[in-house]
């Protein structure tokens, strides 16, 4: 593990002393008394060159020891100038030792380390000091290249030149001599330089944190991947729906999936005409045959009372085919006497009316605000005023979802019906309960066939919540029930509900 600090001070080893320094089981090494030597080097000034599997949060400690080289070797002379003899007594002793030497040229470094591995002292670690760098370069620096640390059994650290010199001087003065010194307890013995190197857990990332980081990374990746995939899916679905709408395969509004509004630009294309009452002799009431009155059909379930056939004047197509010859320009004769939005009567030859494709007429003010803000369907007959294949500018994911749900439900119902005709009713009745909203019994209460669109609109427009109560239409429901974070969630993961 990486070193965080190096401490050094003098200790006094009790007798017996040199030669053959042996640990005395009865005596204990204590700090030297009245010593003015102490060294404390901390993190940025301590570099770990090789960890050698030193357990974390432990200490590498021992007495300072210079590895014995053959004393006339060039490297020895370089490392310890002057006629120095190594006689610290740590060779072949039981005391832990910390080797130390200056960091020289690569050749000498190799020689020194080799000497250290062959040294008979009980080396627990090795401490290099730079002679020209203060503080020492970081462990990844090229400065430390040229030596293979990996195979070493002991950890290798390095400190700066200033501290190194200090340490060397202390070693030469006390650690390598046979003088005696007094320790704090008042015992006498040989002084030696003691070095303690503390290691930590911090570098590199310990296993647990690394694991958590990996898990977190995987989670983030999964989230991003899922989000991207879902966005892609939703985008493709939007595109598909847009295409089908453009091809006229899906009529969003008639299916009740989405309310469309008519842009002003298109509204301006709907003709404005001057209203002329069709025939003064004829009462301005609707012809009874032209549109069925839904209220007169009690056999129909109630919801189908909704348009397309409100009890209002129908389109006077019959009269349109034979317009009277003496009409003012840009005017037509209509049998519809009043605007079904404001219920006011039209004045013949005076009122300007907007005529929709279905020939129903309204005051421009009334119908314009309705078409621009509420719906694109004629209020009377529910025929769309938008051209077939009109794609609304914004198709949201919610719309796509509703359309899909509707399509699936439709397919199920179709399957059910075909299976029914094949005479497998008993089997399907059970299935119907399984897949449908209700049992087949309740399904039968609805009409079959033609009014499918309206029926389905009802089904999708109503959302049941967990209490079984029915909430408002889907849009309102989503706006109210979905909180801000839920909306954020569905923005990241479109498609989840």
């Amino acid at each position, binding site marked *: 593990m990486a070193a965080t600090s190096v401490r050094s001070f003098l200790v006094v080893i009790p007798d017996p002393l040199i030669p053959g320094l042996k640990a005395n089981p009865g005596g204990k090494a204590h700090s030297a008394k009245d010593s003015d030597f102490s060294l404390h080097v901390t993190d940025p000034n301590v570099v770990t060159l090789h960890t050698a599997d030193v357990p974390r949060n432990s200490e590498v400690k021992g007495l300072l020891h210079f590895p014995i080289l053959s004393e006339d070797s060039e490297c020895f002379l370089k490392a310890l100038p002057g006629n120095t003899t190594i006689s610290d007594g740590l060779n072949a002793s039981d005391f832990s030792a910390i080797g130390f030497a200056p960091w020289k040229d690569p050749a000498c470094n190799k020689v020194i380390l080799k000497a250290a591995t062959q040294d008979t002292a009980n080396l627990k670690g090795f401490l290099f000091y730079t002679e020209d760098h203060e503080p020492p370069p970081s462990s990844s620096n090229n400065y430390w290249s040229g030596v293979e640390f990996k195979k070493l059994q002991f950890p290798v650290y390095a400190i700066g030149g200033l501290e190194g010199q200090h340490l060397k001087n202390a070693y030469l003065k006390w650690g390598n001599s046979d003088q005696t010194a007094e320790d704090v307890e008042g015992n006498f013995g040989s002084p030696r330089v003691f070095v303690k190197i503390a290691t930590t857990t911090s570098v590199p990332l310990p296993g647990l944190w690394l694991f958590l980081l990996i898990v977190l990374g995987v989670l983030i990746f999964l989230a991003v991947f899922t989000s991207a995939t879902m966005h892609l899916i939703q985008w493709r679905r939007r595109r598909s729906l847009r295409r089908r709408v453009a091809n006229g395969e899906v009529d969003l509004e008639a299916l009740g999936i989405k309310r469309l509004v008519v842009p002003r630009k298109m509204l301006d294309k709907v003709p404005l005409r001057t209203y002329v009452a069709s025939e003064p002799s004829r009462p301005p009431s609707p012809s009874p045959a032209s549109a069925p009155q839904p209220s007169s059909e009690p056999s129909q379930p109630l919801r189908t009372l*909704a348009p397309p056939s409100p009890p209002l004047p129908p389109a006077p197509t019959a009269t349109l085919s034979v317009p009277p010859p003496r009409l003012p320009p840009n005017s037509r004769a209509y049998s519809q006497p009043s605007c079904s939005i404001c219920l*006011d009567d039209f004045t013949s030859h005076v009122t300007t009316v907007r005529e929709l494709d279905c020939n129903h007429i309204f005051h421009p003010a009334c119908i314009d605000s309705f078409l621009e803000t509420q719906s694109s369907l004629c209020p009377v007959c529910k025929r769309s005023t938008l051209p077939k294949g009109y794609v609304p500018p914004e198709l949201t994911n919610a719309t796509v979802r509703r359309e899909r749900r509707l399509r699936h439900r439709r397919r199920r119902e179709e399957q059910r019906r075909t299976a029914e005709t094949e005479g497998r009713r008993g089997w399907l009745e059970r299935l119907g309960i399984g897949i449908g909203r209700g049992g087949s019994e*309740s399904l039968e209460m609805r009409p079959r066939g033609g009014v499918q669109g309206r029926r389905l609109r009802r089904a999708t427009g109503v959302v049941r919540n967990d209490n079984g109560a029915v909430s408002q239409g889907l849009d309102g429901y989503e706006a109210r029930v979905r909180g801000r974070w839920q909306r954020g969630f569905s923005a990241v993961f479109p498609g989840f509900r």
Partner: protein
Amino acid sequence: MSTSTPAASRRLIKELTDFNKKRPSHLISLHPVDESDLTHWTATLRGPQDTPYEGGEWEIDIKIPDNYPNAPPLMVFVTPVCHPNVHPKTGEICLDLLRGTAWTPAYTLSTTLESVSQLLGHPEPDSPLNVDIAAVLRHGDRVAYDALVRVWAVMYAGKKGTTA
């Protein structure tokens, strides 16, 4: 006067005159609660014939939104009514017409109430607001359903108790 626009007010007044001119059979009364406020109406609905509701009279509270007739009126039953699509406590009515999905301005208060009246005769137990009575109906117990409806009608809606 209310917050409703002049156009809406004109239409509401016209609806009121039309109603008074020709009273439809499904309504006993339809008028603003206060003559000076056209945004709050009240109506009394007659129980439709040949249904267990026949003979009862239900009061309905009507709130007119600002953008009426582009938006549907808000209708709730004031008189408690036993019906799968009417909330037993709030009187809220589950009818697509009243929810804006199927509403068009071509409907009037009177025709909307006609739809409510028909809802009484044609319950939709698949989208219930009153789950209990809907459950009865879904299980096909028409006798129990009719009896419950009649009891509520006698209790709240002024229906004469019969010996039947």
